[in-house]
């Protein structure tokens, strides 16, 4: 396979198309707009449909309609737009309609929104957080796969840096032969029995049992968690401090960790790839080896809650990130500079940072 140089946003859109996405709906908002732009030209070339919707509410519900008919469908936005879609996310999960949601964050302030959601009821989406453009391509394809496998929305959590980074990538479509046909989709009954696709469940007519349905949805979540937890770790064997980070900033953290090693500090990293399900075991295993965990994230402290839950007080968990304001307003400011991250890791390493 040949590699092509692509900007992150375009690579994400192309990956979706190569994963079989044939419907996209979006509403412009920086830094997700490039995905809409790319889709508007490229989707019709493969017989797909791209809608420049009139609002985020319309966009996600158009995706609902297409995905409810069994077509692979995607939407992208950033925090504000994603906030508007929360009612639909909650009910898409209940209706067991698979689709892919991309949030190109401004900074990393949408961790809570992505992993807890602002919608109602007992639902979750799978959340995958790539840290390179190649990984974004791979995880978008994986997102379509796991969304279909579990009949649940899957969210790819990218950010401003990822969207605007150009890298050489290759598209490696997945083997999807393990996925069952979408016999549940509303396509017109034809010669089969008619069916419902509703958030109250049960495709069978005359037989809606919402209580049973909600139980079944809730019972699905631990099974998803057991099967779909993903993390990457590095340099932990002799590490005394491990840094936990996700998404693009994790790439800066990896660089900083290597720089710390060069200065003689025994430091490693844990990078959650799935944010829900959160890789608590990988984090706990890392904690078992080190005297402190440092958490770098570009927000006021969100993932750190999950890290602390994973560690249960066994070692100090020290925040070394923070909101990072720069004049562009998108949170890609000075906190991300490697020198800053190296200095913060060094403080924890020398035992100076407070837990």
């Amino acid at each position: 396979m040949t590699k092509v140089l692509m900007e992150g946003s375009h690579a994400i859109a192309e990956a979706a198309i190569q994963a079989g996405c044939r419907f996209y709906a979006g509403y412009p908002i920086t830094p997700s707009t490039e995905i809409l732009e790319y889709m508007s030209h490229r989707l019709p070339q493969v017989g797909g449909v791209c809608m420049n919707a009139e609002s985020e509410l319309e966009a996600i519900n158009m995706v609902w309609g297409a995905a409810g008919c069994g077509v692979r469908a995607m939407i992208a936005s950033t925090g504000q737009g994603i906030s508007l879609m929360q009612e639909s996310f909650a009910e898409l999960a209940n209706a067991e309609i698979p689709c892919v949601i991309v949030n190109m964050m401004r900074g990393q302030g949408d961790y809570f929104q992505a992993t807890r959601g602002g919608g109602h009821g007992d639902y979750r989406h799978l959340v995958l957080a790539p840290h390179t453009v190649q990984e974004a391509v791979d995880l978008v394809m994986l997102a379509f796969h796991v969304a279909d496998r579990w009949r649940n929305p899957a969210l790819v959590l990218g950010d401003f840096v990822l969207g605007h980074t150009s890298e050489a990538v290759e598209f490696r479509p997945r083997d999807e032969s393990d996925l069952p046909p979408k016999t549940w989709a509303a396509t017109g009954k034809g010669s089969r029995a008619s069916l419902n696709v509703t958030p109250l469940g049960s495709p069978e007519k005359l037989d809606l049992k919402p209580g049973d349905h909600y139980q079944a949805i809730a019972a699905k979540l631990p099974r998803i968690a057991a099967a779909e937890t993903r993390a990457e770790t590095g340099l932990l064997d002799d590490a005394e401090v491990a840094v936990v980070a996700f998404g693009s900033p994790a790439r800066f953290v990896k660089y900083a960790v290597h720089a710390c090693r060069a200065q003689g500090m025994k430091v490693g990293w844990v990078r959650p790839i799935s944010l829900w399900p959160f890789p608590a075991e990988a984090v706990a295993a890392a904690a078992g080896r080190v005297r402190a965990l440092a958490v770098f994230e570009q927000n006021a402290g969100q993932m750190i809650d999950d890290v602390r839950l994973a560690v249960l007080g066994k070692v100090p968990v020290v925040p070394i990130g923070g909101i990072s304001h720069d004049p562009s307003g998108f949170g890609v400011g000075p906190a991300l500079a490697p020198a800053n991250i190296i200095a913060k890791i060094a403080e924890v390493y020398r035992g100076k940072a407070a837990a």
Partner: protein
Amino acid sequence: MSTPELKKVSAKPDLLLSTHHSLCPGCGEPLALRVILELLAELGVAERTICVCGIGCYTAFPGIIDVDVLQALHGRAPSVATGAKRVLPDRFVFTLQGDGDMVSEGLQEIIHSAARGEKFTAVLLNNGVFGETGGHMTSTSVLGQRTKTTMDTGRVAEKHGYPIKIADLIAQVDGSTYVARGAMHTPAAIAWTKRILGEAFRVQLEGEGFSFVEVLTMCPTDWYVEPSETPDWIERNFTGTYPLKILKHP
């Protein structure tokens, strides 16, 4: 003396799986459903129909109608139908919404769907109240109408604003092709509504564009009116604001 021959004028529509539903006696919505199901059978489109149902009392219908159903959230049926019809353009897609659903919560979506000329048929069941939540004022409650939230005075323009004539609005939008209004309160009105719904459905089947039918339906429970008096209530209170007519045709 010979017995006059009995002629059966109505029977359970073939596409109705069960006559059990949770709607109130005297409600106009099951009547509208009946007309729709009869038409789907007569036009021979049931096998390729996708009904997109909104949220209101009529949410009881998906389980008992023998066509595929996508359940949409309150206000969102036109967007869901857009997604469905765009990916499956050869299917017959229609939406079912109440006035609270379509005109209050989802006004933007129905207008934009009309403006885009989406090739599905939108059906509004307009009873001038939020039926399912218990009888509150909606955007279509008429002036003077007593609802749970306009109890003492009825709807007063200075306080509650004016009702929105959604069919008139949609007829103004360039992307709409067929717009008409019917009602369920008399046999003649039902026959008229069946005619305009049939025309709206044919507009879709012939790929001519966006078709829209508003159907005035009775809500004896939330109007605080005896079921037997609701036809008269529609005549006196609704048809002045919402005259039964074709507002736009190809």
